[in-house]
């Protein structure tokens, strides 16, 4: 799951870069030519792409955890299989994206270690709790849905290996989204308890999905290197609006109520009121929505969200537990035992 919303910091201008090469590089990007690992690129571009691909890879790996915790409790063979395969896909996405990052100059070991040491970040949305099966349905519907929207635009980017990886990943994300949609539909067609479970989970995840696309864009975002060099294709606010236009009416059709919620420090909803802004503007065709709590967003990004410690501790534990296997594997490539 999970696109890399906003890991791209505004970069310093390309001081010290050869102006002629820089001009050619920007010309190629303007012509829609893909940049490949062996090509000349400004150092700021290489670092920016690395930061972006690494952040995205980290998000896939940490993103496997909230849903992974529900594999043992999935309520049917079909759901258990689909959820296991889904989480497995996310690990595969992480693997592919670490490969893209490796080519930009950082080893996988270093990236996995920096992740568990808290030196690098992953997507904010995985720092929220998933206390019920309804949350698993919501993650696959809303968060995978948001990830597809973001990643489809990233597939129009300029860096060849990242673009090709996005295209591969997006096919699988489409399955995740379909499965999420099917889960939500099944639950909303079910019993009172199932519907309530789904509404409660929707209340927990709606604002998180709005935050998924990152904070409001700074003025002049389109002229910053991230967009000029097509690392980032679409502005956060326009992606967010597209998401609301797609999901607000879909949620209402399913019988879900779009609420503005207050949450406690554990990410649990303490009070709700219906979002009166969530209506379609006939003039623009856009659906309105109440802006999520951006103070909360920055609090969680700084490490003080409901599940930051829990997610990171589990990943670190698994990394440490697996150390001996990686060391044993380093003794040689895998071979089959001598025939009996």
């Amino acid at each position, binding site marked *: 799951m999970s696109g890399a919303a906003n890991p791209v910091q505004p970069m310093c201008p390309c001081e010290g870069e050869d102006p002629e090469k820089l001009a050619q590089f920007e010309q190629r990007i303007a012509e829609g030519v893909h940049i490949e690992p062996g090509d000349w690129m400004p150092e700021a571009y290489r670092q920016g792409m690395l930061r972006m691909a690494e952040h995205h890879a980290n998000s896939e790996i940490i993103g496997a955890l909230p849903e992974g915790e529900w594999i043992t409790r999935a309520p049917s063979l079909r759901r258990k299989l689909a959820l296991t395969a889904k*989480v497995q896909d996310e690990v595969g996405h992480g693997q592919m994206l670490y490969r893209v990052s490796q080519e930009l100059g950082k080893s996988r070991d270093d990236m996995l270690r920096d992740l568990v040491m808290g030196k690098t970040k992953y997507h904010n949305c995985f720092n929220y709790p998933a206390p019920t099966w309804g949350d698993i349905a919501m993650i696959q519907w809303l968060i995978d849905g948001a990830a597809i929207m973001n990643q489809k635009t990233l597939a129009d980017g300029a860096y060849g290996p990242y673009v090709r990886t996005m295209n591969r990943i997006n096919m699988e994300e489409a399955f995740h989204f379909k499965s999420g949609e099917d889960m939500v539909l099944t639950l909303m067609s079910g019993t009172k308890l199932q519907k309530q479970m789904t509404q409660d989970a929707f209340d927990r995840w709606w604002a998180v999905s709005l935050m998924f696309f990152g904070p409001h864009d700074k003025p002049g975002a389109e002229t910053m290197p991230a967009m000029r060099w097509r690392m980032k294709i679409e502005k956060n606010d326009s992606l967010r609006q597209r998401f609301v236009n797609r999901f607000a009416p879909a949620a209402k059709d399913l019988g879900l109520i779009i609420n503005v919620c207050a949450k406690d420090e554990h990410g649990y909803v303490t009070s709700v009121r219906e979002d009166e802004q969530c209506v379609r503007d006939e003039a623009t065709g856009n659906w309105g929505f109440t802006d999520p709590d951006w103070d909360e967003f920055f609090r969680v990004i700084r490490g003080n969200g409901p599940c930051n410690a829990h997610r990171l501790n589990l990943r670190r534990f698994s990394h440490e537990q697996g150390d001996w296997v990686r*060391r044993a594997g380093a003794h040689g490539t895998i071979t089959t035992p001598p025939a009996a």
Partner: protein
Amino acid sequence: MPLRDDVMALADDKLMSGHMQSDWTGLGPILEEDIAASAMAQDDLSHAQVLYEWLGGDPDATAFGRQAQAYRCCDLVTLPDEFDWAIATARRFMCAHFATVLLQDFAQSDDADLVDRAARLLKEQAIQTTHLNAWIFRLGTGGTDAHARMQHAFDTLSPYVGGLFETIDQAADRFDRWRAAVDPVLQSAALKIDVTGPESTTCGGRSGQHAEHFILQQAEMTQVRSLEPDAAW
């Protein structure tokens, strides 16, 4: 009916080993092996489903809707691995070879439908055993620390191996075939198992006398479904 009983025993083993191993998805020691092990866990869950279908009734009701005593898996498959890859790998290796022995016999049975199903499953089963054989060799020969961890895992699991064969038809013969499959691999990695023969008593999981750890796993597995047992999920 020994054949039906054996199919149920293997189907429940497959369900619970798929359940235990799928829990590792996203937490494996190496990304590539995380993915491969998860694929095998999914195979195990699918194999359970294929065998439940042959037994008749709704596979989900069989998998999730029974009382704990009605399950016929052995205690080896649900023994907690405490997040130890050595235990998880050693267990999968022993269970995969046991499954192969039974599936080979199912593929020779008089029931055409079962023959067909077993033949299909055997193909995926062969991929599992090849992969696991290679990993037992790799870890057993992967240095002193790795070897010690693997030997410790086999020492921990050995007392439960007899339970694989509890209530199983032709246990002695099948036990011999199982040893013939696992021994060369273990020897190649200088690993030992201390197992003398199939369990003659019937006092374990296959008779429905489950260990506490199975009861806990089964409760977790059925937790969501039992909120609304008759609803679609």
